[in-house]
């Protein structure tokens, strides 16, 4: 999990406005979400951020399919932002000030998109034009299978034709009608613009041409850029990577993962960096990083605090740090495997999933395991950010709030002998409305194994609590932990096609973290039948229909229908989703509120404050 998330860029205007006001009126600045920063704005300075666990290894923004290192986005996003900037403050919406387009219009039943680019410049003074978009499109058109961010059926294969009527206008002729919100928020928000005038070549010394316009040329350019993108020794020196359109340029990169940014002096966006330099320093473990924070060292200005260490926050505050919480953009869950023998038959019964969800004390988990730093997990859509996506049902706490009595009633009403703190058994096998259900035999015990990712204390605590509260309804849970990578490598997507592959027989319930969302928290690719991300094999024609409508239909109101249906159907057992906690030097302003969507913080709006004394 990446520790840092990109700050809301819409905050910039607020910051600057309040800053001006502050300078004029007594050196007290209201920053972001309202935190008060005392003192005057100081131009310049260096901020060092901690990066825990891993570090980037690829700089070309179109990462190949064999590279799953999420830290690469931390490295590149400050230099090559996406066409659609995810997150407006803490809102789940594009940021109008930071988007690379000035307008985006859907016509012809939402099958044609017209994008007008802002008159911004690359760092070398060349204008950003529609040719930069077609460059990206051409590269991906011939190489999308080797692009890590490619999702089946989406960009670029959902684009039939790209027209560029002028240097700042792009017209996308799509393969069908698409829901405008979905297309903008989840499709175009993953597409950067890249400098065709500097990168459309096949060797470092070769001349730039229109290679991308042919299949062979596009493949040659792709291969060249991929090769350069993986050469860590030249990240800071390769002339290719000097041409950027974001607020930052990479000034130093060491193979240890240590790197630094300096301002792009020709940045056209609204938030020109105030700091002189930003340094990213790697730590092998969060323990080492926490010890450094506690040591009073000046090594870290902005750091990550593991949830296990929230009790250290007062000590860190006394060391001169402030605390902020960054919601995780996604949904946390226990994943049921509907295709595992025996247990799969139990998990296919909606009433069993409902009883199990009633037995999860989510509020208690948020309070005791995550110290309050978590989304409550009321349903498929988070509620601590992006409230515009929350249906009234989710805002009210979801359908299945902790209620062991109700869980026991449901199980008893479906032919189970309920044995609290023991193991329930089926006493009425059969398929009637008051029977246990299809395939469940007499005396079948209601028991499951929960496989989960080891190494995170809060997960250990959460799953132990899950085991305890499920037992109140006689649902017997055994726990098994494995290192995350082992867990990933030994479990597979289990659905009608893959069944009965061995990889789907060895797990019943699984918990490993959370599924990421874009700005539009759609169930697309997660809950629809045969979706690659539908690991447990949930299938419902109604769910497919609702997801299709959120993806292709013209209306936004269908989203709540999908959301409430998913909440009711429990394709996953909902869990609280822990936030990330960061600490930052108290004299550093502009850090909050934090944007949950992008891969990095955005230090272009940060600045140090001078003491007002």
């Amino acid at each position, binding site marked *: 999990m990446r520790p840092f998330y990109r700050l809301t860029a819409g905050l910039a205007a607020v910051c600057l406005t309040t800053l001006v006001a502050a300078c004029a009126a007594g050196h007290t600045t209201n920053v972001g979400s309202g935190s008060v920063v005392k003192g005057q704005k100081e131009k310049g300075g260096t901020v060092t951020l901690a990066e825990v666990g*891993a570090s980037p*290894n*690829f700089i070309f923004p179109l990462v190949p*399919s*064999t*590279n*799953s*290192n999420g830290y690469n986005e931390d490295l590149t996003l400050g230099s090559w932002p996406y066409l659609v900037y995810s997150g407006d403050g803490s809102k789940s919406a594009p940021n109008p000030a930071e988007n690379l387009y000035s307008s985006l219009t859907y016509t012809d039943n939402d099958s044609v998109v017209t994008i007008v680019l802002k008159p911004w410049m690359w760092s070398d003074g060349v204008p950003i034009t529609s040719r930069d978009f077609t460059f990206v499109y051409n590269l991906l058109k011939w190489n999308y*299978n*080797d692009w*890590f961010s490619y999702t*089946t059926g989406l960009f670029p294969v959902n684009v039939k034709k790209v027209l560029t009527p002028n240097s700042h206008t792009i017209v996308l002729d799509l393969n069908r009608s698409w829901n405008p919100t979905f297309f903008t928020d989840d499709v175009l928000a993953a597409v950067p613009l890249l400098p065709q005038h500097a990168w459309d070549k096949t060797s470092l010394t070769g001349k730039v041409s229109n290679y991308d316009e042919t299949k062979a040329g596009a493949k040659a350019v792709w291969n060249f850029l991929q090769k350069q993108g*993986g050469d*860590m020794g030249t990240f800071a020196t390769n002339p290719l990577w000097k041409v950027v359109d974001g607020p930052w340029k990479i000034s130093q990169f*060491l*193979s*240890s*993962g*240590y790197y630094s940014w300096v301002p792009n002096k020709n940045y056209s966006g609204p938030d020109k960096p105030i700091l002189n330099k930003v*340094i*990213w*320093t*790697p*730590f*092998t*473990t969060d*323990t*080492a*990083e926490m*010890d*450094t924070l*506690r*040591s*009073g*060292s000046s*090594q870290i200005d902005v750091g990550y605090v593991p949830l296990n260490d929230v009790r250290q926050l007062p000590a860190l505050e006394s060391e001169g740090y402030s605390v902020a919480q960054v919601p995780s953009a996604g949904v946390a869950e226990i994943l049921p495997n509907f295709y595992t023998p025996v247990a799969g038959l139990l998990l296919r019964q909606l009433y069993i999933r409902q009883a199990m969800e009633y037995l999860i004390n989510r509020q208690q988990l948020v309070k005791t395991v995550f110290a309050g730093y978590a989304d409550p997990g009321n349903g498929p859509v988070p509620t601590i950010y992006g409230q515009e996506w929350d249906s009234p049902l989710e805002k009210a706490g979801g359908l299945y709030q902790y209620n062991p009595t109700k869980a026991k009633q449901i199980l008893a009403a479906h032919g189970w002998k309920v044995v609290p703190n023991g193991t329930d058994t089926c006493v009425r096998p059969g398929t009637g409305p008051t029977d246990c259900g299809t395939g469940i035999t007499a005396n079948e015990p209601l028991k499951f194994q929960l496989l989960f990712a080891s190494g995170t204390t809060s997960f250990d605590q959460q799953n132990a609590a899950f085991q305890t509260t499920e037992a109140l309804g006689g649902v017997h849970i055994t726990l098994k932990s494995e*290192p*995350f*990578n*082992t867990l*990933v*490598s*030994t479990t*597979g997507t289990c659905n009608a096609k893959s069944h009965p592959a061995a*990889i789907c027989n060895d797990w019943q319930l699984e918990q*490993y973290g959370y599924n990421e969302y874009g700005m539009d928290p759609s169930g697309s690719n997660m809950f629809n039948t045969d979706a*690659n*991300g539908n*690991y447990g094999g949930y299938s419902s024609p109604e769910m497919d229909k609702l997801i299709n409508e959120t993806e292709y239909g013209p209306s936004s109101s269908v989203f709540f229908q999908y959301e409430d249906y998913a909440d009711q159907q429990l394709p996953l057992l909902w869990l609280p989703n822990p936030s990330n906690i960061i600490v930052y030097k108290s004299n550093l302003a502009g850090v909050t509120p934090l944007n949950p969507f992008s891969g990095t913080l955005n230090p272009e709006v940060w600045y140090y404050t001078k003491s007002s004394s």
Partner: protein
Amino acid sequence: MIWLLLKRIGQSIAVIVGVMILTFVLVHLEPGNTARAVLGFKATPARVAIFNNTYGLNRPLPVQFWLYCIHVLHGNLGVSYSALQPVSTLIAQRLPRDVVLIGLSTFLSLIIGLPMGLYQALHHGTLKDDVVAGTWFTLYSAPDFMEALILIAIFCVHFHIFQPSFPGGITTVGGLFEDPRAMVLPVVVLAINNVASYSQYMRSSAIEELAQDYIRTARAKGMRERMILTRHLLRNALLPIITILGLSLPDLVAGAVIAEAIFSFPGMGLLFWQSALSHDYPVLLGATLIIGIATIAGNLIADIAYGILDPRIRHAVA
């Protein structure tokens, strides 16, 4: 002596080949799908196929092993799946740092442990001997991580004297000393266990030597005690330590996983551990090979040194 050397080198090559076969088989017996472990839950079958094709994992295991051997003979240890860098580069970056870290801790252990062992031997059976032995055994019994965390809590968090981790921008061995305060605790933690071990070996060896006739003779001849200790006792009592030092050579290469993780020290131990977790086979195989070679070399060096220092061995072989 030359015959001994040739024989040992021949044995060493056979052992290295055995290590290669064994580690290759063991690594591939690890449960799960490598491509999925590296690519994560997003891995589609197409993506898995590309990964397997890129790294040759779709070939039969014997073919993979054969290619691996060919590459190793050409000095190519492969490319790391997760770091995307040649394994030899990763090892070359980390190995010298471990040599410095473990070398310093070994040196510290020796300069404390050997005099301590000698002191105990000279006060054998007294309260002084018991107190020193008890102290070091207590420290020896405590796990590394506990000692590290206690020292960090005292010297870094409470008193702010030392740094609990290394600065992030280290790429060279010299960089380790950019902030020398970061080097103190890892060296001390690693030395603590070794001091106990070296001092006890030294103590036993010295007690044994003190009972030998040549010591009695030297004393009977009126030689000063200091001369007896330095000229006669020390040289003979150090022989077992030579063997232990030789056997500890692999530690220089293998690193120290726990200490490296706690102190954010980018060394071999951490590389090995992270590679095991992420199914990064090329790194695991490369690191194991280097550690295997170091183990064999350590044994060989110990044997040769023993032969040089102890004429009885030399003559027995001859």
